[in-house]
């Protein structure tokens, strides 16, 4: 087991973790999917969550974002208790996510999809909308400008904005999904297997993008199976096995841990 003292101290130095789970438990019927997990994502960090198939990584993500109600444990995001809050409510605290199988809105253009991410910043009432009040127009214009900037940031040209999102290539769809999440101006971005289905070039590009997201001051928690990328990208890794934390700490050390290797490759009988 790798100790977490060094990084934990660093996290405390910048004002405590942005996201923390203490004793998180999730039950599905009689089955305990997550059995008492502690997890702390430091501010400004790229934190990786790895583990073999069925270890419960996506369940953790779903619990953090409110899709699944934890059966026990404390969840705090940016100092706010989030366990039991609704998905939209947690999202509006500054927690944005992407999905394992990209989930863009089918009939929408790229621009419109991204704009949905800014939903919480629109406040115009029905009359203001119907009569096209100046304030409502300005809010819309500002959001569109911001969306354009974000599309540029994730590496998509302006010509993509008017395309229906689901007609884009897989790699571009992933970028749109990230732009949509960033549009909510999150403090923490959760990425569920952002590299799945990408070719080698795309992987490098997306990994670069994740770094740039962090440079904007947004913390990142990501699930990913490509260990080479995780090794290079993450400040810290948490390994999950059977819904419990197996290891936590510096990526090199964690990946060299025989217990972690055994979790992936299996143990000889």
């Amino acid at each position, binding site marked *: 087991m790798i100790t977490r003292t060094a990084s934990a101290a660093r996290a405390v130095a910048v004002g405590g973790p942005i996201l923390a789970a203490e004793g998180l438990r999730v039950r599905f019927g009689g089955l305990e999917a997550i059995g008492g997990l502690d997890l702390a994502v430091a501010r400004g960090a790229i934190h990786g969550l790895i583990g*073999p198939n*069925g270890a419960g990584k996506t369940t953790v993500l779903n619990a953090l974002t409110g899709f699944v109600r934890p059966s026990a444990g404390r969840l705090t995001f940016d100092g706010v208790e989030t366990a039991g809050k609704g998905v939209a409510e947690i999202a509006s605290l500054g927690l944005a996510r992407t999905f394992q199988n990209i989930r863009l809105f089918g009939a929408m253009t790229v621009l419109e999809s991204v704009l949905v991410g800014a939903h919480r910043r629109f406040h115009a009432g029905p009359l203001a909308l119907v009569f096209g009040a100046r304030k409502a127009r300005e809010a819309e214009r500002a959001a569109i400008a911001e969306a354009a900037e974000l599309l540029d940031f994730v590496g998509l040209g302006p010509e993509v904005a008017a395309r229906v999102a689901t007609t884009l290539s897989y790699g571009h769809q992933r970028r749109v999904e990230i732009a949509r999440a960033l549009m909510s101006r999150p403090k923490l971005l959760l990425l569920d297997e952002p590299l799945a*289905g990408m070719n080698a070039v795309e992987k490098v590009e997306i990994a670069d993008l994740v770094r740039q997201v962090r440079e904007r001051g947004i913390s990142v928690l990501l699930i990913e199976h490509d260990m080479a990328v995780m090794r290079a990208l993450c400040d810290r890794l948490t390994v999950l096995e059977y819904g419990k934390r197996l290891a936590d700490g510096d990526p090199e050390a964690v990946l060299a841990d025989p217990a972690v290797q055994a979790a992936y*490759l299996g143990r000889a009988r």
Partner: protein
Amino acid sequence: MSAAGLTTHHTAPTGLPVSPLLSVRNLAVAYGRIRALHGIDLDVEPGRIVSLVGSNGAGKSTTLMAVSGILPLAVGSITFAGEDITKLAPEARVGRGIAHVPERRRVFGGMSVRENLVLGAYSRADATDMEADIAELTQLFPILGKRMSQAAGTLSGGEQQMLAIARGLMSRPSLLIMDEPTMGLAPQMIDLILDTVQAIRARGTTILLVEQNAVEAMRLSDHVYVMRLGRIVHQDSGSNIDPDRVKAFYMGVEA
């Protein structure tokens, strides 16, 4: 011979090298616009255990689902026992002798253990031998014998796995496909299932296996294919394969 019910022997034409029971060529599968497999070639020779290993998302399960016909092929061909089955419906493939024990077991939870077993023989016309087969399978899995009238959904994970395997064997397959048979099981149960895999092969049934425990899969198998990102990146016989090389594929270090 009482065991004949569940075993099928494949003998190659005399004088020729053994021809593969299952042969997959240039297999590609797409989920919508997303390609999950890019030109898989693999052969499974009769009487062998062949494994696919590789980390999550490598395309192992997708390959198995394509072989049993659940997923449509974008490109490629599948030959089984000398017959091109590429366009055959899944249920027809069961009739030809392919049984697939799916990931996460997928037993019919609301039905009894016996009903699950009887359903396993759905593709068979000869209902008369069914009782004998069930009796034989309860020798292989004694615990199932004690649970015959219990609802499958109430069994433990390991018991459900045994039931799923037994259900697959009820169709008297010549090829048994097993997807992650030990996933989520306790260590003792894992041992038991892996022993069972060998026992089934010993009866002459060919096995195509996807197993999370790569170390054991390599030890158990006659031939191992290593998959990564929808491709076969390495293959060798079970005794020759280099565990460190496989480990490198898993842990992201280039060996």
